Each structure stands twice: as C-alpha cells, then as structure tokens.
C-alpha cells in the first residue's frame, strides 16, 4: 500500500497549468481572497500553528519568519521565491512548478500581502529555463485577473512578481548570493550580519522562501478542518515532498506524511533497488547532506528521528546508492561538485575543498597516511566551523558522516 498522500499536491493533474480560469475553477485564489481579509499577523500565526518549517533545507519556522518580516519597519520590502533548487538529487520544486504554477504564484502574493512587500522575485535556476514561459504566462494571467498589480482585490494592496533566472551557480541558492545575483553581481554570498531579513535585495528587507514552502501556503489557509495537523508526528507535523533517486527502480517525487519509515519510501514508493542489489548508503538532503548505511531503513522520516540517526531532512532529497558504488568514489564525485561550486571568496571553503579533493584522491589510490586522514578531519571541521556561508559549512557533511559510518573504507593500506 502506498504511503503517499495528497495535501500540497492535491491540484496535480486537476487543472490546465496554462489557464488561470482552469485553476480558479478548482478553487484557485480562494486562499488569497481569504488572506486579504486577514491581517498579516493572523496569516503568520496560521502558518505557525501548522508548524511549517522552511523547505529549502535549513528548516526555519515559517510562521516566525513571516511575522518577523511583517514586523520590520520599512517603506519597501520584497519577497523572494527561491527556485534555485541546486542541491543534487533535489527536484521537488520543479515538480511543483510544472504541475501547479498558479498555486506558487498565489502563495507568493499571500506572502507579499502578509509582510507588506511591493515586489516579489522568483529566482529560477538556470537549468529550469524551460519553465520560464509557464511562469511568465502565469504571472501575466494573474495580472490580467487583478491578482497582481495595483489595488489587488480592492484592498489597496499593490504587488508585482518578477522572474529572474540564475546563471547556474549552486551557491546562488544561498539567500545572500541569490540576491547578489538578482542585483546583477557575481553570485557570492554576503557576510552576515546584516541578515537579508533586514537588508537584502536592493538593500530592502527581504523575505526568502522556498518553492515548496510557498506552495503550502494556500492549502494551509484553506484548511479549516486542520487536516494538515493530522499528518505526521508530534515533532514533525504535516507532509513533505521527497525526491528519491539513485539506484531505485522508481525514482520520483512523493508527498509523504512525516513519520513513514525510510524503508517505506525507498522500497515502497521508489520500488526498491534496481536488480535487487544491496544498499550501500543513503544520502539525505542533497550533496550537502550526510549519509547513512542501510541500517537507517527502519528510521521514521521525521526531523527528529533523522537527526538522532545522524542525518537530516535538508532539501528532501533521498539518494540511494547500492553496493556497486564505493563510498570513496561517491565522495570523490561529491567533492568534484563542491570544488566546482565554491564561490572561492573565503579561505576555509576555497582552500579546504582544494585540499580535501587532493586527499580523497590519495585515499582512492590507497596511498594515504594517518596524517592525511587527520588533515581531512581537521579541514572538514575548519570548514564547518568558520566558512562564510552555508556552502562551506556543509560541503564536508558527507565526508564526515562517511568517516564515521564507513571507517573501513578509509583504512590505511
């Protein structure tokens, strides 16, 4: 029996994604109509009640984020939809945009209304350029129907949405690099503070949300029966989109209630391993995520249980790797990725990635020494503790978890 549910994916396949009329026919923009009769604080409180954690990876409390954004006093504010989805093995946002673009637009308008923003920006990853026409058309139709522009729904609320495409850098998924990129600068993260919630895009207070977070908003606002709260566990309320890939028979995006086991996802939804091979490892949350051996299969997929097991939800990616791939080869590939994607401005990330790459090569060749392993641990820690942004902080998550869980693969020959 499938453990998948349909809460935020309930519109999938139910309307013509190119037609706002079709969207409205299934209740589209009802949430916005409801929202404009609420205060921003009330909307934020509704999200807080649903205990939604941001779906970009960091898992920041979304109700709190919106109420803080609302509380910032400024003449002008902006909302940013982070559709950069650069974490390898993460493709849930793409699915949401492809199947329910108007819901995202509606979520962004509600976000703008809630925090008193005048402009919203969608930062779409370069590789999703095929989705540009769809989104641009959705924005245009929303404007024609008066859901964007001046005096929206007669409430004196003025708001527009702009679409920006990135140029392909992974680091631009980081909030401050993202706003730099929209501003036309090189995508390199800013130092923090100032935090973008106070001083972000064009130096304006900026509320950045992931596609999935925004896509949840309408459903939550219309969820009078609190159905959402019936999903999940005490610590992880509701549902989550996971993108499962790797050596599984049926890779794809699934909406699961928190609390199903990893086995339910990998063997149930994703159909198990190709040719029934044994699992070597599972990486959670993308390239910046940690990985675990197959003993994790019976762990419930919740924030708290995964954390206990030494991994995390992160972006919702679940990468299953079977016995045919060696841990070290896998790490080398991950390292290639970070060595390519580091922006290079801070020392720990630039030089740290460079050295870990060299050291991993030695491990792969079997020529490493105890000192090399010590250097790897040391550099990984320096990167995690002192890098300027989240990229450097998490780039060695996989390595650290591998050295812990797969000690035998690092044995000195």
């Amino acid at each position, binding site marked *: 029996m499938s453990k998948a549910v349909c809460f935020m994916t309930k519109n999938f396949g139910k309307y013509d994604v190119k037609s706002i009329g079709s969207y409205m026919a299934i209740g589209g923009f009802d949430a916005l109509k409801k929202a404009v009769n609420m205060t921003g604080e009330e909307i934020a409180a509704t999200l807080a009640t649903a205990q939604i954690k941001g779906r970009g990876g960091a898992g920041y409390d979304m109700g709190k984020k919106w109420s803080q954004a609302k509380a910032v006093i400024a003449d002008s504010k902006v909302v940013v939809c982070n559709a950069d989805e650069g974490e390898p093995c993460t493709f849930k946002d793409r699915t949401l945009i492809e199947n329910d673009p108007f819901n995202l637009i509606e979520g962004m308008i509600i976000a703008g209304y809630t925090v008193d923003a005048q402009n919203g920006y969608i930062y779409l990853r370069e590789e999703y350029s095929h989705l540009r026409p769809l989104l641009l058309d959705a924005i245009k139709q929303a404007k024609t129907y008066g859901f964007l522009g001046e005096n929206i729904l007669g409430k004196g609320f003025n708001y527009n949405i702009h679409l920006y495409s990135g140029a392909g850098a992974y680091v631009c998924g980081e909030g401050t690099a993202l706003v730099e990129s929209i501003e036309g600068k090189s995508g390199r993260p800013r130092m923090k503070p100032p935090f973008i919630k106070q001083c972000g895009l064009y130096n304006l207070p900026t509320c950045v949300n992931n596609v999935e977070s925004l896509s949840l908003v309408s459903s939550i606002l219309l969820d009078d029966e609190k159905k959402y709260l019936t999903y999940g566990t005490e610590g992880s309320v509701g549902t989550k989109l996971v993108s499962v890939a790797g050596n599984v028979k049926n890779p794809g995006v699934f909406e699961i209630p928190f609390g199903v086991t990893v086995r339910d996802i990998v063997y149930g939804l994703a159909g198990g391993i190709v040719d029934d091979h044994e699992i070597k490892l599972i990486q959670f949350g993308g390239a910046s995520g940690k990985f675990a051996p197959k003993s994790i299969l019976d762990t419930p997929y919740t924030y708290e249980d995964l954390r206990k097991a030494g991994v995390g939800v992160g972006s919702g990616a679940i990468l299953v790797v079977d016995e045919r791939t060696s841990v070290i080869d896998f790490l080398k590939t991950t390292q290639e990725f970070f060595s*390519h994607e580091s922006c290079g401005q801070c020392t720990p990330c630039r030089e740290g990635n460079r*050295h870990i790459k060299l050291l991993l090569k030695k491990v792969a060749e079997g020529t490493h020494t105890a000192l090399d392993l010590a250097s790897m641990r040391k550099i990984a820690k320096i990167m995690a503790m002192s890098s300027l942004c989240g990229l450097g902080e998490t780039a060695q998550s996989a390595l650290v978890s591998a050295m812990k869980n797969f000690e035998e693969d690092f044995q000195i020959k």
Partner: protein
Amino acid sequence: MSTVNIKINNIPLQVEKGTKILEAAKKIHIDIPHLCYHPDQTIKAHCRICTVEVVGSRRLLAACSTEVWEGMEIHTDTKLVRDTQVGILELILANHDQNCLACARNQNCDLQNLCSRFNVLQPQLERVSEPVAIKDENPSIARDLSKCVKCGRCVKVCNEVQGVNALTYSGRSEDFAVTTAYNKPLLETDCILCGQCSSVCPVGAIVERDNTQKVLNVLQDPSKHVIVQVAPSVRVAIGDEFGLPRGAIVTGKMVTALKMLGFDKVFDTNFAADVTIMEEGTELLDRIKNSGKLPMITSCSSGWVNYMEKHYGDYIDHLSSAKSPQQIFGAISKSYYPEVAGVDVKDIVTVSIMPCVAKKFEANRPEMGRDGIKDVDIVLTTRELSKLIKYVGLDFANLDEGSFDSPLGLGSGAGAIFGTSGGVMEAALRTVAEVYTGTELKNLDFKEVRGWEGIKEAEINLGDNSVKVAIAHGLRNAQKIMEAIKAGTCDYTFVEVMACPGGCIGGGGQPIQSTTDIKKLRMDALYDIDQTHIIRKSHENPDVTALYKNYLEAPLSHKAHKLLHTSYKKIEKQYNFSYLTKK
C-alpha cells in the same frame, strides 16, 4: 551612544553598541589575528582567520564582522579557536609562494608575522601554489598572484576609496582571483597607478616596481653626478620604518642618510613646489583675467593626472599646465643646475624620493624632458629609500641632523604643505592673494582648506573679488567634483585634487601600515614645519627669486613655459561595452 556589556576571555568590559568583536578585543589589548581586516576599509570577512568562539553560537564567528551584543561572552583563546586559526593559516600558506627571502615584503608581511606568531614553520599540507605569469609591464606596480591571499584589501581600496574599479574578483573556487578587466595589463585598464593597492596589500602580491638597484648602480659609478630631491611628505613618514614615533619630522636625519648613501647633492622638492606655485599661481591669475578655462585644477598629483586622462579626458584642459614639483625640479636640475654647478648635463642623474608609485610613471612620460635627456631619471618610493638606508646599514634614528644643499635645497613652509591635502591650495592662495591684491596678507593660515574632510570648500576674498575654491582627496571625492563640472553646476574657480587619501602623506609609496590615524599625524607634522618656518610664502623664497632673476626671467616666460609646463591628453578606453546596448 548606548553601550553593551560583554566578556572577552572572562574579562568584563563595556563597549559602544555596534563595536565589532575584533575592535572590542583591541580595547583590552588583545590582538585577534586578521588578514583581510583593515581599519580604514569596510569589512570583508573573507579570510576567516579572526574566528572566535561566542557562547551559545553553533559555529565560530568572524571577529571582524560580528557586532557585540549585550551579554556576549567571547573566547579568543580556546583550543577550538586556535586550531581553526592555525588551520586556516596553514591553508593560506599552502597556496602561497613561500620564497620569503626573494620577496619585497620580507620582514614586513602580515602573513609572515602570523606564521611566526603561531609557530607555523612546517605546514603539513601539500603545497598547491603555482607560479602565475602576469605580463604587466609598467613602471609603477608589480603584481604576483602566487602570493595573493585573496583578502580583497586591494579591491576595496581601488573601488571604495578610489572609485577606479581597476581591480576586481574573477573566477570561483580554486580559480577565485584578483584580476583586472579581461586580465589586461594595468596600463590597458582603468588603473591610474596610484598604488594604494600596494600599500594595503598584507603580503607581497602587489608591490612597487623596485628601483633600488638602479640607484645603487649610479651611486657606485664615479662618472655620474647623482643628485636627489625629496618630496615634502617623505620627511614625516620615513621615520615609521625605523621605529621613530608616527608623524615624527626627520628631515635632518633623512638628509644625512642621503648624503651618507653617496648622493652628490641632496635637494628639496619643496623648492620645486615653490616654483610650481609661481607658475601655477600666475596661470590661475591669467585664466581669471583672460577668461580662461575655469575651474583650474591642480596637476601635481600624478595619479590624479592619469585619472583625468583615462576617466575625464574631455575635461583635460581644466588641468593646470604647470608640471608637478617632481618634474619641475627635474627640468631645473637638467637646465639651470648644470649651468650654476658647472656640471655636464649628460653626467647628471636626477633621483627623486617620492611617497608615490605613480611618480615612477610620470618620470617616464615621453614629454618629460628634452633632447633625449629625462627630467627625472629614477624615482624611489619612501619604502625603497628605507630599504637603501637599511642596505648601507645606517642607524637612522641616531643620525645627525644634516642640511639640504644649495641652490635647489631651500623650500618655504608653503612648499612643505604640498605634501598634504589642502596644502597646494593654501600655498597658492598665499601667493595669489598677495600678487592679486598687492598687499601683504595679515594671516597666512587658510584653516578652511585644512583637515581630513573628503571635499573642502572655501570662499576666498581677493580684495574686490571673491573666489570659490575646493579641495578633494581620494578619487571617490574628486569624482564628485568632476561630475559637477560635467553637469555645469560647478562654480569653483580653483580646485586642488590629490589622488590619495590625505594627499601625498597617504601616498601609495609610503610605509606599509599607513592608516588614516597615522596619516593625520603626518598632516599635523607638515603644518608644524610650515608654522615654524621663517619663509612661509613661495614667492618670498630667495632661491626661487634668484632662479627667476638669473634664469627663467618670469613665471610663464617663454623659457619657463618650455621647461616647466606640459600638456596632457585624453586616453581612450581600451575596451567599451557599447556593443551590449546595441540592438
């Protein structure tokens, strides 16, 4: 200003709200290691070597960029902090050309100091630095990317202080580097060779083009008559290199050192500055009287002249045609001086000691000389002179007080203040006011043109007429004036611009570690020299009067014009982006 209570290594202290951890630690005399941090620049937080532990924080925080908060408990000395700092240092070092002995910044290098401090003598990491070939022929600045630690100080000073934007970042990850547009040589970029980058670089990645060996060669050649001129700001800065108090006036020791180095004559650029005033002041009066191009803008600062040529080429006729004091001295040293001294001009080598790397370029301008004879042959920066003094082993601090030689060694107080922002203006006003009104000034101090303000303005009464003047230092500020001239909203008659912050006292060739606070001490020192000088007006300098009487006849005379004036030309940009806007 409200204050917050914090603890650093369990020591309680109160600091102003908004203070960064690094600055707070300084107050209790703890130096948190840093590389990219520079007290005169906005924060970059790139190098991460200043990371410290803050109780309650998940990660280490950069001390340079993190503001203190009420109740913050900071630890700068835990094992985690030290392991991280040393680890970062090792990472930097692994990607740094470690041939310290062959480096211009040996023993004057922030990275070397940190390695020495943390005893990082045998780094365990694989060396990944590779020689980076840069083909960048210019007389002023040498770059070596294999030494670059990517701190970004040079980029900041070029962009934020100078507004020149010649240096920027390119690439990412391992390829992240400080570069010029399209990696072009500096001369083909917007660079104006001010050398501010070289004075903020913590290591030897950007240094002045070294001419010390050239000077040693001519000094050791008995057939050469080697004379030297010293710019006004050098005497209040070079003491830094020998442990003397910042801003100390060391004119006498400096002259003695130059004589002991073997220069045949030691002369003063202050003398040439007085001549500059005679020429430039007369030119200004001429422009006012004959409706010439106004405002007239000074042209003493060679970085500034380069800037005008490259960035405001259409407004080049605002520049005074008078050469800079360095070049005026040079021209006189190759015309009047050989006659007076009875030396063959072909045997004379004119060396100048300048606070500046752009002066090296200026001396090499083809128009600066005649009949194959250059006005100035070799230019050394303050830094290079101190190297020469160390080379010959002089105990500078204990040298006797020497005196400049005649006939080009007497400069007025007005000449001395040429070394500071506002000084050329004040010197000119003293002369112009007296010549214009024909009456003696009661008060020689034009206080309104002094100080550290980026742009200073004053209205000067010239008897029946009053003129508005302005002074800018640092090219960001100069830009504002040029934009006003461009917009036609500028009603100044005379404008002084110095490319470097503070003027020559903050020049790109001054001792490393010249912070704003130190530059202000040098500024005060130059005004002290002026205040206590018997002669405080250029036109009352008897040696200048003699020069005109015996040789040049009068300011702007045919002879003066030929020797002491020049012209500049617009330089077209080497690249343009117009194709981007073409449809």
